[in-house]
């Protein structure tokens, strides 16, 4: 019996190529340097870019670390009023895109906004409210939006530790807080670090929030060098620098994620430290404050704005955006899930090093920030267009224009970025099908098609559904790649929200933003149900 290359393997190699191409274009972009733009960049912007990025990494990293871990410890290991609700409700901010929280905050703190007025009333203009359009403000927004990554992973880690180890610690003379510092925290460290790395990847990739706050980072500079200076090469060079930061975060996440497996022990569900009196109520107040600022406040504000304009805004343009959003989300979800299925099947059948390394390459796509990916794809399409025109000129045919900004370019970007998202659920449902089950079905008289119909499809369906849903929602929320690559007139909810918000027209941003939040709640609800 010789091994043939299966269609799944061929598809996997093809996807590997698709992911590798934008990476290569970005990393090999240093051949031609635009002196004038780089001169400008170095004179005015570059130092700011670097320091701002470092501040973000430090501030957001430290912030999500402390906030996420503290909240996870409180809800898994302590008992206080409202704990059961907070336990899942603290994951809700996952549904709020960073750029949405950003413009809500901007309004709250702006001249004449509620916070500004509050300060005026209480302090009589003696103290002015803090400037939200500052490093601290940007960091606060990111921490509030991305702490759920750390919260979720740390929560699972704490819950899986069981209480026997903490009891062992206490029997050796540790107080509860010493037990936390010396036992629980070190054991949860890999999970927490993985959560921080994920939050940092999202922070580095963000374009909307920093743009609304006018805070110079790489994503913004990449956009500017393309949009203002029309210099793809400079955009690509800046992208390659951002990519380095992103890859660093990704490798951090991967190595930590691997380690966290070894630290899980089984045991009884943890008992909880009973908080009493002032400590209990101040805990409740603190957790409530976090949930309020990160979720309840922005949603209420959006509802308030949205309901005010719903009569005039729920029009044909809204439904056109809805259709665009659904078409792009659905198309990308279908592509990514098919790709993920092929990859999972290829890994299952083959298990060779070639497939494994291509598989690893494909999962790197997730680390490509949307703006970096968009620049890479634009360069690819431009080069492809030049080559096509050269061939056509040689054949004496009129040149066709290859549109850099087109639906195929968008789908390409989504596939590269979100294949990993689809791969998780598809592979975990495929792993439920043990090889012996296929053989059992054969020994019971089923042929190939019967095995696929009666074993594979029914077992895979929930995983495939989950993959479709998760990719679709991620694509709908995705801003930078969509903003850069969309063809003329293809506005989505995310693009509309951003455009209106960056013009300061909050009311008009509210309805699409609210639509995104509602869509984004779906996977959070699934997550919450799964984690119970």
């Amino acid at each position, binding site marked *: 019996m010789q091994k043939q290359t299966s269609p799944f393997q061929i598809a996997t190699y093809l996807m590997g190529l698709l992911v590798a191409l934008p990476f290569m274009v970005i990393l090999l972009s240093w051949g031609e340097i635009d002196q004038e733009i780089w001169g400008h960049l170095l004179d005015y912007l570059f130092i700011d870019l670097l320091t701002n990025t470092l501040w973000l990494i430090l501030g957001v990293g430290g912030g999500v670390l402390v906030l996420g871990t503290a909240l996870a410890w409180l809800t898994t290991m302590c008992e206080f009023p409202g704990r059961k609700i907070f336990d899942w409700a603290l994951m809700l901010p996952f549904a709020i895109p960073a750029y949405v929280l950003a413009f809500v905050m901007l309004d709250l703190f702006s001249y004449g906004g509620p916070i500004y007025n509050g300060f005026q009333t209480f302090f009589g203009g003696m103290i002015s409210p803090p400037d939200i359009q500052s490093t601290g403000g940007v960091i606060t927004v990111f921490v509030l939006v991305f702490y759920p990554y750390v919260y979720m992973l740390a929560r699972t880690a704490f819950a899986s530790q069981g209480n026997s180890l903490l009891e062992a610690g206490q029997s050796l003379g540790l107080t509860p807080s010493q037990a936390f510092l010396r036992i629980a925290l070190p054991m949860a460290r890999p999970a927490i670090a993985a959560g921080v790395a994920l939050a940092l990847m999202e922070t580095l990739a963000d374009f909307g929030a920093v743009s609304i706050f006018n805070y110079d980072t790489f994503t913004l500079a990449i956009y500017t060098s393309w949009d203002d200076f029309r210099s793809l090469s400079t955009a690509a060079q800046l992208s390659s620098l951002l990519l380095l930061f992103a890859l660093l975060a990704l490798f951090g996440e991967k190595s930590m994620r691997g380690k966290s497996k070894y630290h899980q022990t089984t045991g009884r569900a943890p008992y909880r430290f009973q908080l009493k009196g002032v400590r209990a109520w101040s805990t409740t107040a603190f957790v409530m404050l976090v949930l309020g600022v990160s979720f309840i406040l922005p949603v209420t504000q959006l509802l308030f704005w949205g309901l005010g304009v719903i009569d005039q805004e729920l029009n044909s343009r809204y439904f056109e955006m809805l259709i665009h959003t659904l078409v792009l989300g659905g198309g990308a979800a279908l592509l990514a899930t098919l790709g993920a299925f092929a990859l999972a099947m290829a890994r299952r059948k083959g298990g060779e090093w070639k497939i494994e390394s291509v598989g690893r390459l494909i999962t790197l796509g997730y680390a490509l920030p949307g703006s970096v990916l968009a620049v890479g794809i634009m360069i690819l399409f431009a080069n492809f267009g030049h080559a096509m025109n050269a061939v056509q000129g040689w054949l004496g045919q009129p040149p066709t224009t290859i549109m850099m900004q087109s639906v195929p370019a968008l789908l390409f970007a989504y596939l590269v970025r979100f294949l990993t998202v689809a791969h998780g659920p598809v592979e975990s449902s495929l792993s439920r099908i*043990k090889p012996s089950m296929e053989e059992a079905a054969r*020994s*019971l008289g089923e042929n190939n098609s019967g095995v696929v119909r009666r074993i594979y499809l029914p077992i895979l369906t929930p995983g495939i559904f989950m993959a479709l849903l998760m990719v679709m929602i991620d694509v709908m929320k995705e801003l930078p790649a969509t903003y850069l690559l969309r063809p003329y007139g293809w506005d989505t909810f995310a693009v509309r929200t951003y455009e209106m918000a960056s013009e300061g027209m909050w009311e008009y941003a509210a309805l699409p933003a609210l639509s995104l939040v509602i869509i984004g709640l779906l996977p959070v609800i699934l997550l919450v149900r799964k984690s119970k």
Partner: protein
Amino acid sequence: MTIHNTHLSLSHIQCRYGDNIIVHDLSLEIGKGELVCLLGYSGCGKTTVLRAIAGFEPLHHGSIILNNNLLSSSTQMVPAEQRNFGMVFQDYALFPHLTIEENIVFSRRNESKAARTRLSDELLELVGLKGLGVRYPHELSGGQQQRVALARALAQNPEVILMDEPFSNLDVELRERLATEVREILKQRGITGIMVTHDQHEAFAIADKIAVMHNGTIQQWDSAYNLYHQPANRFVAEFVGKGAMLRGVIIGESLLETELGELHGENSNSLLDGCKVDMLVRPDDLIFDAEGLHEATITRSNFQGAESLYTLQLSSGQEILGLFPSHLQQSVGEQIRFNLDMDNMIIFECNVDHSENMGAMHKQGH
């Protein structure tokens, strides 16, 4: 021993993974309704033989024949789904998305709903799981899942049932009880069964005949009694049951000189006088006797309930095992007297490669 109606026959089969020969020149004849067991350490090729019979592994040489129909050869292979062999997998391989009933009647989808329910109820009752048909596999214990896997295989009215380490994931007590139950069910229905295991107690509990395998070949194909009392070679002697080897020298026909004196015994060996040999002494060959001929020092004792297993040191330093009634209550360091009671001497020539040397000694008539 000849079989009158051969049901399944493997002749000179060879299986390979790449250049690795996993099963080499292996032949077996299994009669209708017989229960047989392939017994050996993991990696000895026993599972590969079972999978070759099931149609999951190709043959490199030889053939597998069922009722005079060729199933597998180096050029031909009837697909697994057309063989109608029931298979019970080590991990049970129950379909997680189907209920127990749907699992059991998986092979009967062309029949009416009522007929399938009837069949499932009947089989569930047979395996002692009445009323559990509506549950899902993950809601059952390991032992219950094992029974469902058997019921599912029985539901297809198989020609042969193949079982791959079917009890290995269960605890010891349940293991032997289930093995006996499975034997009764298969015997009652007259189904030919082949089981693979590394656990000899399981094999003794279920099988009419056992093939002890090592390095891809059959070392001995015999009843449990003969494997224990008349092992064909040193590997079988050491693998099956407990015992020790006592050094000796041949000094005449049926006469052996050892530390325990000159021993008589029937044996079919053709070794020359003066040949150094090892003699197999089973723990139950030693009979406690306060006036016994032999004496030894107890170096270890292992209480086992009705009996105790003692490790005894002879004056030369050689150790043998003795199984004595536990009432004796002898302790370590004490002297103990005993007699030897052996029906036939099992001897193996010294200083020769383990598995090859003894072919000549106990030719089992096939």
